[in-house]
């Protein structure tokens, strides 16, 4: 490459193709200067090499047998249904919550919003400890559940769902709240003049209009629930078949059965890629349908 600090009139060769492109775009060069390019490449390498390692080390030949080994299948099943239930709960509770945060005004609204979104930044293990202290056998709610109803939550599949919901629901709430804020209220006004009560407006106008964001929020929420580790292992433990989800299974398998750990990781990687593609897809582009 030429020294750019040369004389002002120093000319460099411009390939016909590059020349044509610049003429068409009316834009400047598309290559990156070295001081920006090198760190960028380092960053890409750092993020991609580990994933490549996963692919290279995978025991492709015996993949089927390993994944059908009882432990792995059970973990996969447990993860799928608990994260789906967690997403369902998040939808039922989180969408109304998002609506309240976006559309109402009351004293302390901002505090509520901050508290609700706290799990986004809270270390999950702290969430697990908190859940344990609240719903554990000696927790301030859990002790009554135990005494009065004989219900014990910790270290059960219910605890898995609760831990995942705790960590994942804010993703849905934040996404949907944003969409509700930017949604064109004009449609809701129009619906009102057409005789629609507030609940009819919500079901027939507001929800369909934010449907793309709703779907995006649900997918994000589900993906986050699927990958949940810290809160789950703290609050639900790691009982194979009962509370041992995929990420936890991966963690334990790494010591006993590295091949299984790698394959389970690949499954999670595949799910992540699918989610990413889905989120990039047109119907999930976020925002509001126009």
């Amino acid at each position, binding site marked *: 490459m030429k020294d750019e600090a040369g004389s002002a009139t120093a000319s460099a060769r411009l390939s016909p193709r590059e020349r044509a492109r610049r003429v068409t775009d009316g834009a400047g060069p598309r290559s990156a200067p070295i001081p920006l390019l090198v760190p960028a490449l380092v960053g890409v390498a750092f993020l991609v090499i580990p994933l490549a390692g996963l692919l290279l080390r995978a025991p492709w030949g015996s993949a089927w047998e390993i994944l059908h080994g009882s432990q792995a299948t059970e973990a996969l099943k447990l993860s799928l249904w608990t994260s789906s239930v967690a997403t369902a709960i998040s939808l039922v509770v989180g969408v109304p919550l998002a609506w309240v945060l976006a559309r109402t005004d009351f004293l302390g609204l901002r505090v509520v919003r901050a508290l609700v979104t706290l799990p986004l930044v809270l270390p999950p293990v702290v969430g697990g400890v908190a859940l344990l202290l609240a719903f554990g056998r000696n927790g301030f709610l859990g002790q009554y559940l135990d005494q009065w109803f004989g219900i014990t939550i910790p270290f059960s599949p219910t605890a898995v769902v609760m831990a995942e919901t705790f960590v994942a629901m804010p993703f849905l709430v934040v996404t949907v709240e944003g969409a509700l804020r930017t949604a064109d209220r*004009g449609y809701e006004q*129009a619906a009102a003049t057409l005789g629609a009560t507030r609940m009819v407006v919500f079901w027939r106008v507001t929800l*369909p209009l934010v449907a793309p964001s709703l779907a995006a929020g649900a997918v994000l929420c589900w993906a986050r629930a699927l990958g949940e580790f810290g809160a789950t292992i703290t609050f639900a433990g790691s009982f194979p078949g009962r509370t041992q989800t995929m990420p936890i299974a991966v963690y334990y398998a790494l010591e006993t059965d590295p091949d299984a750990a790698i394959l389970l990781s690949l499954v999670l990687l595949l799910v992540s890629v699918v989610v990413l593609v889905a989120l990039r897809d047109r119907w999930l582009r976020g925002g509001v349908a126009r």
Partner: protein
Amino acid sequence: MNPGTGGEGLVADVEVRRGPFSLRASVTAAPGEVLAVLGPNGAGKSTLLSTLAGLTPLSGGRISLGGVTLDDADSGDFVEAARRPVGFVFQDYRLFPHLSVLDNVAFSPRARGLGSGRARRLGSGRGRRLGSGRGRAEGRATAYPWLARLGLAELARRRPADLSGGQAQRVALARALAGDPALLLLDEPLSALDARTRIDVQTELKRHLSGFAGPCLLVTHDPLEALVLADRLLVLEHGRVVQEGTPAEVARRPATDYVARLVGLNLYSGTAAGPHVALHEGGAFVVPDHHERGEVLVALRPSAVVVSTTPPALSSVRNTWPATIAGLTLLTDRVRLDLVGEPSALVDVTPAAVAELDLVAGQRVWLSAKATELEVYGADRVKGVAGE
């Protein structure tokens, strides 16, 4: 308030205070009457509609429709928008993008639970045959006749995004009418259309409005639209009613500069004494016998003024005064001269006259207008010419 309308139709005493803006207007509209609300941007036209629809509550005053109170700031009574028998056609239509044309039009019948009883009144037996079942099917059954009436039957399955401007406008009208409203509100219904479509839709709209039984309010800033569509005009400026009357009255005797400009007239205010009117901006007119005393308005058509390059010789024309050409604008078939003098005036001449007289900006000319071309009327009488 206008006693002529009594409990019938729309009787509204509207007051809205919002920061520095305030709207204060008395509006009445009889059943079957189309009232155009005309005014510049920010005059409060849309706010007025919004209060009638129940989207904005009143700060003061009262709204009643057919004798039923919809809003009363004193007693606190307020009927929510969803419970008002009002149809609203928005400027941007606001068709629900996720619903088909059919379901857009069926929205209101469904939301209002318009059953078979109402559907029957709408001229189709379809609703009756469906029996007592409510919801989607019945809403659609009520919507079909409206689609047919507005020529939208073939578009029933389309999404709003796939409609042309004129089609979307018709769907918006059908959607508002399908809810069987007692009051119809249209906010600049044609402003989103291009000029060519507007003429077609305007003619069609007039037909549909004349078929509507209740009072209808049409907000516009296009005087032609108001003249064509409305039975009566109400001019709103800075949140106040400045003129009310039939289109012909408003067009002939504008009350403010804004209205005069809209209808293309020169308007002067002055003090009348016998056949002489001393104009406030300087100059004077000799006017026909008018029996007016004190403050008057004088309207003068731009085409009624004669332009000459030399002082005219003795003639029967009573008003002659010098002026300077400040500008020339070519309108479609004539040239409009902007003249500064005492008084200033807009004057229309033919392009041929401009060429023959060599008229250019900055030139000094003489204007003359026959006294009989001047329309003189009392400044205080304009608001009351509603003629009810």
